[in-house]
């Protein structure tokens, strides 16, 4: 097996005295698409925020590309190629779509290639090209999700983490977003996908983890998880 790009061991995270993550292990291999599913309040968002450096772990290890991220600040992790599309999108509402994309390329110095990547994003999301000078706050939820994804891709990440990209979107938009995730994955990017929509997530992913109240209770190949009774009952409404 390849050395994993991301390797998490015994990770613990607490909010004050509340233990939200109680010692989890997970990894993402280069080029892999991994789903992290679980019900409300399981700790999925907390996990991603900790990996991005927005929260500090109470214990455990996070290794990225073989190096510990312990003393690496969030903005430095972004520069190292870790991108998070946060829950609720977090677009800069008072900036234009084009400015949001440039923010995504903030850590990059290669001006020419940035321009080329912007053009590429407009090909990937033609809707954004039409709206490029509009303030991001005036876009629909689905369009904002596109901005958030395009913005994350602008950093040319090696590890892309997505927190519930389908949340609050119409079925057609969900389809479009997941098609894009599939395309990006096919290009070889490593992706950690958090979703409440377990079926969709496990259909695009190669492997999956199931999280319940701060612990990982099941893991394995996505197809196996899709077929397993426990997952069927708890998350797929079967």
């Amino acid at each position, binding site marked *: 097996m390849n050395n994993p790009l991301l390797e998490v061991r015994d990770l613990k995270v607490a909010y004050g005295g509340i233990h939200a993550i109680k010692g989890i292990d997970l990894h993402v291999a280069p080029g892999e698409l991994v789903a992290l599913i679980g019900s409300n309040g399981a700790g999925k968002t907390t996990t991603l925020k900790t990996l*991005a*450096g*927005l929260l500090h772990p109470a214990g455990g290890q996070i290794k990225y590309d073989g190096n510990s991220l312990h003393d690496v*600040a*969030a*903005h*430095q992790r*972004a*520069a190292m190629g870790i*991108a*998070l599309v*946060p829950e609720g999108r*977090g*677009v*800069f*509402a*008072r*900036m234009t779509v084009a*400015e949001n994309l*440039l*923010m*995504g390329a*903030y*850590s990059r110095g290669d001006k020419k290639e940035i321009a080329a990547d912007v053009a590429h994003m407009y090909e990937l999301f033609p809707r954004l090209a039409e709206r490029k000078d509009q303030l991001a706050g005036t876009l629909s939820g689905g369009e904002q999700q596109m901005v958030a994804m395009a*913005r994350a891709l602008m*950093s040319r990440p090696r590890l892309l983490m997505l927190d519930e990209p389908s949340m609050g979107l119409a079925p057609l938009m969900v389809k479009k977003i997941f098609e894009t995730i599939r395309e990006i994955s096919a290009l070889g990017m490593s992706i950690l996908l958090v979703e409440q929509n377990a079926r969709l997530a496990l259909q695009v992913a190669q492997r999956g983890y199931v999280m319940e109240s701060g612990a990982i209770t099941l893991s394995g190949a996505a197809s196996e998880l899709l077929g397993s009774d426990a997952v069927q009952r708890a998350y797929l409404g079967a």
Partner: protein
Amino acid sequence: MEIFLQQIVNGLVQGSVYALVALGYTMVYGILGLINFAHGEVVMIGAMLALSSLTAMLGWGVPPLLAVLLSMVLAMLGCMVLGYSIERIAYRPLRHAPRLAPLITAIGVSIVLQNLAMMIWGREYHSFPQLIANNTHTVGGAIINDIQIIIFILALAIMAGLMVVVHRTRLGRAMRAVAEDQHAAQLMGVDINRVISITFMLGSAMAAIAGVMVSANYGLAHYYMGFLLGLKAFTAAVLGGIGNLRGAMLGGLLLGLIESLGAGYIGDITGGFLGSNYQDVFAFFVLITVLVFRPSGLLGERIAERA
């Protein structure tokens, strides 16, 4: 009519100085949600630093024009260091404290700086050396002098420059990103502490220039000059909508005009009961009136939309 025009001229000049200082309040508020009450003292320190270095350089025989420029640069650099230190020492440790804590600290910093200035420069008024001929010109009956013209043009140029930085550069985008969502900004790779420091330094550099402008215009500098000036500039920022850059500029100019026109006509309005020495009251009267009708200021968003 001549009085009217004259007061407009005076008001615009004074207002452009308020605007420069108001920008410092509003930039910090926009990024940290903090009212940096020590900002007025930075203006005063800027004036004092410029005064001292100017006097020293003239003593060493540095040509006057060069001495003016150098002392202004020195004042700016000194205030940038001061602004950086204020944030680093007084505000950063309280970043996650309840809002009242940094506010009280700000007032404390302000008192410390005032006392420090009093110890260094004394309680007396210092006269600011008059170095250029300062010719006066008559425009349609109103009198304007060279210093006023320089103040106004320089202030407008600095404001235009700031707008370019904020709206057209990578640094400006980072500043707006931090102002809007610190977490998202970090996810983009923005070092928010660095951006916050730069914001304090930019505001302080503008404060230094404003301090030099005021002293040059009135020919005086004093350890207490930052207090009222800071309060009025803060008023201007709130008037325009605190957190909004255009609002600070508009608020500054408007406040200057209102004050100046008020001072020119207050005697007529009150039948001679109040004289022009009551002009300071206008600023606060206007502030209260605007806040009653538009709590978020002229160009500000509703506070609820920000939160």
